[in-house]
């Protein structure tokens, strides 16, 4: 083959710069990783403050008793926030589903039938939320705020301030299956993790999550490409309703009682967990894993503060401080989008 200087050089397309798989993983998961680092630092601080308590597995098991409820609630809320919406009604949905479960138990229904009743109530509540937001076109902030009062009001009207005891379920195979313990480790932690794992699959590896993200990112574009925005958003609220039902059942089982206030305490903690976990407020991106880590962070704050020797009066102050610090850490750890 002779070499000619005039021979046209073949055009070589430069291939993408090789990136190591680790770099790629870190880049693609910077939000949950940042949340995880924050959690580790937090626990390290608590351990430094009270080494004896925080090296004892018992403290973790104590937190794990009710942590699964936050985990279960935070997962679908990540979907809703990613879709560019919000849900403030889930505490009351938890309550009304718990009521359905407890009322069924009092009537001596089969426990699984009671769970089905709770799920049905949750699905209907979520569906109504979805309709108000996508069909009646109310702002999700206001619509779900209204629903939160409305459903809590229904609970109070129906119960006149009284709770429903479900002690007959205590130590039954049903109860042990869902909230028993293995060497002190609460079984509900396994259920919570399973729920979160399915949520992660739906969010990152399923059409549902992909479409939710696109809707939150650019709703016009999603419509343009034939995505049924109304339906997908309604499905996200139904998902939230299902989670609220599961959370309501767990809460009732753990306390052996349905209180008319069941669920109330989770509003700010779960909302905070979403954002502390790294899901931004503007929609289009979110992280289920981050949300779960956020639930861990929020879940350990109170225990940690008390264990560090401060009184309960400090709890809210440190709640606020830790939430703001974690958001600042995300702020410096995000890609250049919007900054």
């Amino acid at each position: 083959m002779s070499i000619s200087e005039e021979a046209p050089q073949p055009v070589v397309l430069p291939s993408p710069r090789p990136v190591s798989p680790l770099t790629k993983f870190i880049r693609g998961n910077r939000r949950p990783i940042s949340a995880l680092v924050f959690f580790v630092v937090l626990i390290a601080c608590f351990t430094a403050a009270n080494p004896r308590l925080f090296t004892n597995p018992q403290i973790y098991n104590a937190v794990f008793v009710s942590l699964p409820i936050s985990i279960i609630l935070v997962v679908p809320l990540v979907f809703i926030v990613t879709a560019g919406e919000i849900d403030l009604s889930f505490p009351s949905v938890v309550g009304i589903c718990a009521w359905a479960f407890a009322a069924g138990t009092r009537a001596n229904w089969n426990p699984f039938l009671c769970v089905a009743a709770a799920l049905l109530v949750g699905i209907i509540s979520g569906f109504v939320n979805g309709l108000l937001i996508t069909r009646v076109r109310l702002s999700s902030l206001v619509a779900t705020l209204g629903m939160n009062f409305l459903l809590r009001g229904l609970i109070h009207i129906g119960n006149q301030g009284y709770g429903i005891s479900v002690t007959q379920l205590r130590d039954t195979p049903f109860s042990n299956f869902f909230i028993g313990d293995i060497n002190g480790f609460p079984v509900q932690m396994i259920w919570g993790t399973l729920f979160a794992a399915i949520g992660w699959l739906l969010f990152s590896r399923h059409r549902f999550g992909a479409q939710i993200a696109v809707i939150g990112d650019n709703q016009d574009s999603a419509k343009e490409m034939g995505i049924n925005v109304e339906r997908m958003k309604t499905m996200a609220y139904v998902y939230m309703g299902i989670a609220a039902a599961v959370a309501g059942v767990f809460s009732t089982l753990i306390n052996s009682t349905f209180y008319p206030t069941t669920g109330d305490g989770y509003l700010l903690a779960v909302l905070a967990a979403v954002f502390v976990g790294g899901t931004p407020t503007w929609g289009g991106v979110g992280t289920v894993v981050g949300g779960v880590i956020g639930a861990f962070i929020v879940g350990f704050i109170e225990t940690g503060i008390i264990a560090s020797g401060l009184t309960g009066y400090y709890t809210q102050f440190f709640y606020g401080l830790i939430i703001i610090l974690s958001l600042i850490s995300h702020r410096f750890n995000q890609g250049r989008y919007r900054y």
Partner: protein
Amino acid sequence: MNEPPIIKLENISKSFGSVSALTDISMQVKDNEVLGLIGDNGAGKSTLIKIISGVHAPNSGEILVRGKAQKKWNVNIARAHGIETVYQDRALAEQQTITRNIFMGRERGGFLGFLDIKKENEEANKLMRTIGFTSQVFAADSQVYTLSGGERQGVAIARALYFKAKMIILDEPTTALSLTESEKVFHFVRQAKDGGASVVFISHNIYHTYDISDRFVVLDRGRVLLETDKTKTTADKLVKSMQDIARSGHAA
């Protein structure tokens, strides 16, 4: 080759209330051509493309697809005939990956709707190479906001082509772009044409439109002022006709 044109408009008129946007428009888009749609602001360019893409229904006149008059016409029917519109700011979800944007609404779902992400990425990569992406940092799983304005247009064009668009309408694709970025868009348009598609290129920059187009339709105040081949005109002639319009407009 004597197949009727992809789309032909006959005596289309459209008014919004008492304001007449288009009057008696007749034009066509042929196979495998780049048609430049030129006109000043308010000439009726966007109304015309919205009628072609099915967003607006005309008040009177006929739309013919491959010679067949369409009784019903909307976005879905237009899309089913392979007519896709790329709006500059509505096209892409910027925080998503290129792959997600290409498969938006048409995700490759396998078992129970779970995504075949590896296959989607592979196909997106192949597609980006065909359309002429040469940027070194590009990969199908990069997020769209990391791309330049011209490259984003390329992603939208690639998406339309992947889903078998026969005709792509580009609404002001170069308006907000620098010269080098516009060059990228022209490159993508040429690739789309080489791939067999027709492109309707809308711009009020005549020089941009002139370079890329095979044929021109000049609109003025809702009417077709001129429909001509590139071989029969020059950019300067087109500019002059636009200036004449502007002058007559001021006189009137």
